[in-house]
């Protein structure tokens, strides 16, 4: 299955991409995707404990199981207002 990954703010700068496509095995979770990305872009690892994640524009936990076509987003600590 294939998911779209969206990265924001500094995470996007580190990876050099706003959007990535990833092919995953069935049963893969948000955490699976994160670990894969952190392996590819070592600069992301520092965010391990401070990121939030979302699936299809709803907040979701790292153990959330993904489905084909999902949009996964990784969000660094927020600073709106």
């Amino acid at each position, binding site marked *: 299955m294939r998911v779209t990954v*969206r990265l*924001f*703010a*500094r995470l996007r*700068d580190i990876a050099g991409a706003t959007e990535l496509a990833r092919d995953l095995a069935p049963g893969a979770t948000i955490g699976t995707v994160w670990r894969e990305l952190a392996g590819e872009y070592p600069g992301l690892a520092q965010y391990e404990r*401070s*990121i*939030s994640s*979302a699936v299809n*524009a*709803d*907040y979701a936990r790292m153990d959330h199981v993904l489905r084909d076509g999902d949009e996964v*987003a990784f*969000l*660094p*600590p*927020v*600073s*709106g*207002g």
Partner: protein
Amino acid sequence: MATALSITSGYTEDVTSLLAIGPEPLELERIVAALDTSGRFHTGADGAVVTFLGLVRNHNLGRRVRYLEYEAYEPLALKAFERIAAEIHERWPDVGLALHHRIGRLDVGEASIAIATRSPHRANAYAASRYAIERVKQIAPIWKREFFDGGDVWIEGATADPDDERARAEAERIACA
């Protein structure tokens, strides 16, 4: 929410949404008017409107700020605003809320967020206004990049977790202080 909530954002439309995020300059009059015409507040029972504008400051942590760039995960930001509106409705049932956030490049002195609250008595409108801005800073997926004399930096505040009850309680404590 009991109000007629339109999710579409932007000031190009005839009806101003109660909750919105977009690149257009913020106008307090627009969001106050949005509250005024949002149905349940038409009864004349309200005695207070509180407005808040967050502005781009020319200094931060000893740096001279030139401008800010705001970025958002817009669909989730709108859902976060809806959640904040629902929390306010639960905590202060007589308060109406309008909240708009701007994104893109903002120069010093420009408004990044506009909040209007309305209620029969001022205490709840003041409290809900403060609660709204504290919760935006906690859970809205919005980021500011600061461009200052000598460089730029992404500002990183809170890890967004809408289910974190301690954060919510802290926002309520600040609101009611």
